[in-house]
């Protein structure tokens, strides 16, 4: 079996569908019990129903962006695995980063080159790495979630707790501090694509503010990703 055959195998489809049905059931039980809880606490059913309607309406648009991310990932990693990853635990940005880091760690130029090698063991490595890498949060949430939800808010309200907010931001700032120079100084096409992406986001943000087309905000990530990927093909022809 090759990378492509395993990544679209019936067994993987089956395992993913079973897992998704489990998560769907988990969410449905949460919905039912929390709805009942709201009513018990004296919140009007109409208010709870409005929250559900509003949540569904809000979810619809960002979900389309997730589907576009799924289309991108499935081009190199088959259908079931990105379906699973983007439905459970992941997000488009994280999955792309994880796949890219893992492929580079295994000495491939990028995810596409890794898939091109068609090595079944590489697909297993990617699945294992993407799974373990994203589980870090649960190391804290499972043992401490209950204590945190009943006590952490009070701690954050203390004056000196602003350090917690600053420290939390350090992870994302460090991520940017490493990837920006690597992309800018490492490869001309990467740099051009990066700047194209930033420019598209900036232009869309200005358009949204100028013409007050707020619904477009939900599409910024998806449109930027698609247009910048298309632009990268042009940049490869020019600079590659």
């Amino acid at each position, binding site marked *: 079996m090759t990378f492509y055959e395993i990544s679209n195998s019936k067994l993987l489809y089956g395992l993913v569908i079973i897992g998704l049905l489990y998560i769907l059931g988990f969410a449905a039980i949460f919905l039912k*019990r*929390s709805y009942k809880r709201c009513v018990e606490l004296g919140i009007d059913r109409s208010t709870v129903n409005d929250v559900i309607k509003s949540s569904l309406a809000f979810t619809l648009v960002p979900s389309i962006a997730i589907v576009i991310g799924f289309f991108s990932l*499935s081009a190199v990693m088959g259908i079931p695995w990105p*379906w699973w990853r983007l439905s459970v635990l992941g*997000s488009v940005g994280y999955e792309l980063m994880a796949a890219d880091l893992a492929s580079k760690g295994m000495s491939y130029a990028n995810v596409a080159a890794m898939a091109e090698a068609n090595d079944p063991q590489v697909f297993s490595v990617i699945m294992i790495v993407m799974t373990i890498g994203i589980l870090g949060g649960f190391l804290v949430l499972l043992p401490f979630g209950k204590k945190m939800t009943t006590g952490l*808010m009070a701690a954050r309200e203390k004056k000196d707790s602003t350090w917690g907010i600053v420290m939390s931001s350090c992870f994302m700032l460090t991520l940017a501090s490493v990837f920006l120079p690597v992309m800018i100084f490492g490869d001309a096409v990467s740099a051009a694509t990066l*700047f194209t992406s930033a420019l598209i986001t*900036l232009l869309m943000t200005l358009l949204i503010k100028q013409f007050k087309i707020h619904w477009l905000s939900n599409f910024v*990530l998806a449109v930027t990703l698609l247009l910048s990927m298309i632009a990268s093909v042009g940049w490869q022809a020019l600079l590659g």
Partner: protein
Amino acid sequence: MKEKKETVILDDYTNWVHRFGRIGALIAILYMVFIPIAIALAYDSFPPLSAILKGGIGVMALFIPIGISEVISYTPILGSASYLTFLTGNILNLKLPCVLNALKLAKADQNTPEGDAIATVAVAASSILTMLIIALGVLLLVPLQPLFQTAFVKSATSYMLPALFGGMFLGILGPEQGSFRIKNKLLIMIVPVVIVSITVITGILISGLEGVAILLMLPIAIGIARILWKKGIVQVVTNEVKED
């Protein structure tokens, strides 16, 4: 008084929601780990430990601290909806705004029984819909898959990461849109950016070692942030709430 407060917080529902969340999430995690192992064993493609470490060190170095920091940062807002939120992902772009919207609509505050319950309703409804939409995307993709195997698409997917990062980094580097923003936060980045730039230009940091670089730069960034925060140069400022 303290005893009474504890009784109110830890009532039957709260005990249930945390027990159900913990056990349900644990089963899901075990299943997540089971899938790659089952596939590798079924297709005789189990990789050597060295390959997993080689491919995984960067991912783990990056995502494990990020995952932990996200739980610490967002759990106070999400409440008991955290179990479902972290299990279904897409936190910043979907679940967190959804919870804030629900609290606003229900005129409830987080860390109250009402706020906690309404946040869970919102996250659960949102999670179910997202999963259904992605499933719909899968159905639409099957007939479209030949298109995704073309040279153009493969070429474009090679540069997915910078295509996403340019826009994403604008969001990270710009002012926060939530209830607070961090003044002068870009100062924290100066030293790490200079060090990484030098190592990239001189060829010390090659592609594939980004994860290691993050692990090395993280204590430097946190140390600098701590000094700047103590000196009052980096400050957490409350954002003004804009009414619609």
